[in-house]
C-alpha cells in the first residue's frame, strides 16, 4: 500500500504509518512495533515509524439503548447496567488510516508530526 503511494508520487518517502488497532483485532501492539523495523527493511517503509492508535471495544447495550466502552475484553457487559452485550460497534479495527509523506526534496529532516 505504502509502496504504491510512494511509486505514484515519484519516490516520495513514507516517514510514518498511522494504524488503528482495536482491542479485538487479534494483534498485539508490542509485537507489531517490534517487528516493524524488520518487516519494513528493504521496502518503501524502511526507516519509517509505526504510530498505533489503540481502539477500545465499544459495545451497544439494547437495554440502555446506549453505547459504551468495555471495561475488560474478558467481560462483555454493559458499562452502565452490567447486563450482557454482544453488539460490538468498535474494537475490531486493524486499519491503516494515514501515511506521513516526505516529498523528495524535503527528505533531510524527518520532523515529528503531531500524533
Amino acid at each position, binding site marked *: *500500500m505504502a509502496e504504491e503511494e510512494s511509486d505514484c508520487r515519484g519516490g516520495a518517502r513514507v516517514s*510514518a504509518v498511522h494504524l488503528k488497532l482495536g482491542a479485538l483485532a*487479534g494483534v498485539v501492539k508490542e509485537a507489531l512495533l517490534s517487528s516493524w523495523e524488520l518487516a519494513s527493511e528493504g521496502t518503501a517503509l524502511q526507516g519509517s515509524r509505526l504510530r498505533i492508535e489503540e481502539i477500545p471495544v465499544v459495545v451497544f447495550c439494547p437495554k440502555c439503548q446506549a453505547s459504551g466502552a468495555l471495561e475488560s475484553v474478558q467481560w462483555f457487559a454493559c458499562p452502565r447496567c452490567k447486563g*450482557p452485550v*454482544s453488539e460490538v460497534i468498535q474494537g475490531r479495527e*486493524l486499519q491503516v*488510516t494515514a*501515511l*506521513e509523506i*516526505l516529498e523528495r526534496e524535503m527528505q533531510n529532516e524527518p520532523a515529528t508530526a503531531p500524533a
Partner: protein
Amino acid sequence: MNPQPRLLEVRQNVLRQNDVVARELRQRFREAGVYVVSLVSSPGSGKTAFLEKTLSLLRQSYRVAALVGDLATDNDAVRLARAQVPVKQITTGTLCHLEAAMVRTGLEGWELEQLDFLFIENVGNLVCPASYDVGENLRVVLLSVTEGEDKPLKYPTIFNTADAAVLTKMDLAEAVEFDSVAAEVNIQRVRPGLPLLKVSSKRGEGMGEWLQFLAVSRSLESREPQTVGA
C-alpha cells in the same frame, strides 16, 4: 523548505485482501447452496476426531466434504478420509492460520454445487485464525475439557468472533474435574448468547444435538435474504 511531512489519509484495512477474497468465497458458497462451517481451536482439542465423527454421521443424509489446514503433515486428512467423504489437505507450512486465498486454492477442482456442507478445519491456534475470515457461514470454536475452564478468558477474541462453541471430550470431564458451569459462565462473559454444545466424539454423546444444530443453522441461512458481508 517545509520539513513537515504531509499527512495522506488512506483508511484501508490491513487484511483487506483477505476480506475481499472471503467475500468472493461467501458469494460462491451462497450461489452453490453449500453451507460452510469452520472449526477453530487450540492444538489437541479434538477437532479432527470431532470432524471425523461429524462427517461420518452427516454423510448419511447430506453431501459433505472437508478442507483441512495443517502446518506440515497430512495425518488429519488421512484420518478424515476414513469418513469416506471428499477431504483435501491444505498444508500451510509455517503459517499458523488459514487465509481465504488458501481456501480458494484448496477448492480448485471441486464442484461446490454437489455439496450441502463444507467443513474447514483451521490450523490449531486460538489467536490468528480469529482475524482471518475464510468465507464461512458458521465459525465454531472448540474447547476440550482437558484445557481448563478459563480458556475463553485467555482468548476472548476467538470466542467473541465465533458463532457457536463446542465443549469436546466430555467423556473425560469427570476424570479431569472439569467445571462445566464455570466454562459456560466464562464463554458467556466473552460472548453473551453464544450457542454451546457438549459432545464426546469418542462415545457419540451430544452428536445428535450437534447435527440438529447444523441442520437448523443451514436451513435458517438458506431462508435468509441475500445480505452482503458476514
